[in-house]
């Protein structure tokens, strides 16, 4: 354990002893997260190698079926494994949604964050507050707000119909479009805030220097501002990509149970699917994908500091 107090050192000053005792202060938080955060993840790891019990839960019997089921389905009659891409497709769909959401959030978020960072300080604070409020607002309620607008009787369809542009409502809700729209709406603030934090520290003397050397606005943007805000771009992209990949609420409400993403798939196995081992293995595969993303993040940021 890391929390064993160091042996007493009588020659050290009172200060240093106090400083060493301070280490122990971290232990309650570490213990709580370890016991109720890490142990459950280890249980999921164990569950993924067990067999499902008929009414939810697990049978304590070793099995790799949960992982085999990811790609194959057992034929009921011959017991032979057959390739079945259903889960793979849901993972692929989630990945595409996450990439599209991240890219569009970056496209909208970068100009916004840059605009915020170039306001006078008093105005800047207001902008930060305005972006922070949706960041901390209830995700379920915000998703509901999108649903009210895009459903058949929603504001968009009613407005278009009363203007006689369309005479039948366009189906927007429960489509892939609805999910991506909801994800964009949910996670846009997650992109803007880290970008702003990095752009706020930008040294504008470099921008001026570039103009002095006859750079155009476009060149300044692509050759100076964007490369220098790379840490913010990477952090923002990660903050959007990871929760989007594991999104649960958005597809639950805007996908209407037909357009699943990984998060719903996992929850389903623990609910009506009654296959906890399968759900556990899917959760671990999602975790592995997140770890890969984090790995690239760490590599990108460490490389950035080496060069800068």
């Amino acid at each position: 354990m890391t929390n064993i107090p160091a042996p007493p050192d009588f020659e050290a000053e009172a200060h240093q002893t106090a400083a060493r005792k301070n280490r122990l202060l971290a232990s309650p938080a570490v213990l709580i997260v370890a016991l109720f955060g890490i142990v459950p993840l280890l249980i999921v790891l164990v569950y993924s190698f067990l067999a499902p019990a008929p009414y939810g839960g697990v049978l304590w019997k070793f099995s790799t079926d949960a992982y085999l089921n990811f790609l194959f389905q057992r034929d009921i009659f011959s017991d032979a494994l057959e390739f079945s891409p259903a889960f793979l497709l849901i993972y692929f769909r989630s990945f595409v949604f996450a990439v599209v959401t991240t890219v569009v959030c970056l496209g909208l978020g970068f100009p916004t964050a840059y605009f915020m960072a170039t306001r006078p300080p008093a105005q800047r604070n207001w902008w930060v507050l305005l972006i922070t409020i949706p960041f901390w607002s209830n995700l379920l309620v915000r998703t509901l707000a999108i649903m009210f607008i895009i459903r058949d009787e929603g504001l968009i369809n009613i407005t278009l119909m009363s203007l006689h542009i369309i005479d039948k409502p366009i189906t927007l809700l429960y489509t892939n479009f609805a999910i991506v729209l909801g994800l964009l709406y949910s996670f846009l603030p997650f992109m803007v805030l880290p970008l702003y934090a990095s752009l706020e520290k930008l040294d504008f003397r470099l921008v001026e220097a570039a103009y002095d050397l006859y750079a155009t606005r476009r060149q300044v943007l692509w050759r100076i501002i964007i490369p220098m805000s790379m840490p913010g771009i990477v952090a923002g992209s990660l903050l959007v990509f990871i929760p989007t990949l594991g999104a649960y609420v958005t597809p639950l409400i805007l996908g209407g149970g037909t357009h699943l993403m990984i998060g719903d798939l996992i929850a389903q196995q623990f609910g009506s699917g009654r296959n906890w081992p399968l759900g556990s293995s899917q959760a671990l595969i999602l975790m592995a994908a997140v770890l890969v993303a984090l790995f690239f993040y760490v590599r990108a940021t460490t490389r950035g500091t080496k060069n800068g």
Partner: protein
Amino acid sequence: MAKTRAPLDTKEQPGFRGVALFCLFVLYAPILILMIFSFNSGSIVTHWEGVSLHWYGTAIANDDFHSAAKNTMIIAITATIVSTVTATLAAIGMTRVKPWKGLMTAFMVINLPLMVPEIVTAIATLSFFALVAGKLGINLGIGNLIIAHSVFCIPFAYMPIRARLEDMDLTLEQAAADLYATPWHAFRRVTLPLLVPGILSGMALAFIVSFDDFTITQLVAGPGQTTLPLYIWNQIRRPMTPEINAISTILLMVSIIVVAISFLIARKRR
């Protein structure tokens, strides 16, 4: 060029103002529409009939709403206290020490809930409590939700407190020590008062995260343990009336008020 040009604004980029205003519009239009329709007197969610507080009355008179609000407050307040206290201790124990081997590990453990997708935390916590109930026969009832929320809130409370400790001028603490203050006195009279804004914003974040949580609560909650977000979810699946807009507006207002307060505290003390 014949025309004299305005002095070059080196910070300007064409079109960025438009995109920023568009983003604000996109972020706020849906919630504003949701809020406006909570004052609708008619019973159809999207058809405007007149201004009234009727649906707030209906919402607040509902017994299920009462018990959901009560559960939410019990869970959120307890989780806020547990996470803020442990996060404050941890932040002190991890900034006011010489670097040691376990420091990075402790840091990663505390921040783990931020790196794991919420749905994974939810099913893991569900599995954990199912196992504890099955093998040990322990079921803490609403305590399960309090524990789950506390774990998730710790990193949110930890971040602003740690940031505050790191920004703090260490010479103040050293000066106190030079003037023969005991470590405890130096902490109590110098560090802690300076740390208060950080602790308050940590508390605010922990409270909001717990108050708004849906995913973990939905999977971990047992029968009868309905919180406000779960209550809304149950309402969505019925024919909708503006009552749901009224409850949603109340939830949004709580978030907005807490964020605004913590924002003001942070600005004032700086």
